[in-house]
């Protein structure tokens, strides 16, 4: 199971800060994961897929939605940061 984390307004949009989820297949891309979420929760999927939202996989920022995900990954969705 992959662990998803939602930060900032995305945790409000999701109604939760985290969840565990079975990826649609082995070695799926973030793009495919987003499509799965969109099929289940269209509003949340759209919020997560916004171009301003960055994705971190195992605490490292991914350069694109083509990043490959595997089942033990921690996948974080980061909206634009407010700063400290």
């Amino acid at each position, binding site marked *: 199971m992959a662990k998803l984390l939602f*930060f*900032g307004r995305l945790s*409000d949009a999701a109604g939760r800060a985290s969840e565990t989820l079975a990826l649609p297949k082995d070695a799926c891309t973030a793009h495919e994961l987003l499509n799965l979420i969109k099929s289940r929760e269209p509003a949340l999927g759209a919020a997560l897929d916004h171009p301003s939202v960055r994705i971190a996989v195992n605490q490292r920022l991914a350069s694109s939605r083509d990043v490959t995900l595997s089942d033990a990954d921690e996948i*974080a969705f980061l909206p634009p*940061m*407010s*700063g*400290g």
Partner: protein
Amino acid sequence: MVIVQAESFDAGAKINAFMQGRTDAGACVSFTGVVRDETQSARVAELALDHYPGFTEAALEKLVARARTQWSVGDILLIHRVGPMRPGDTIVLVAVAATHRDEAFEAARFLVDALKTDAPIWKKETAPDGSVRWIEPPAELSAQG
């Protein structure tokens, strides 16, 4: 040293402890950020900071390392609060020890500015009437000085 914590802290006591026993530093420049009760003429009853444990600390460590590379300074202390806060609470402390004041001022200034743009922190303001808004650029970046 970078510390991200939910507990409130006494900035003065932290600066004193940071400088305790130092005889090599001729200067300590510090910045204390305080939660304001108003941003963009909106009243703020509570400010809550969301962060990504591990990821946020690593990003702040990187900023501190950059400051130490760029300026000839000694130790740097950066304490950032997260979680719910009220107006008047100390939200952040940056303290830079250095041999000379110019380098200390510049490094501290860099860090405070960089925190505003590069810190992986998400702020939620709650107004006195209970309405909430997440602060994101290009809206006002912060509720602190």
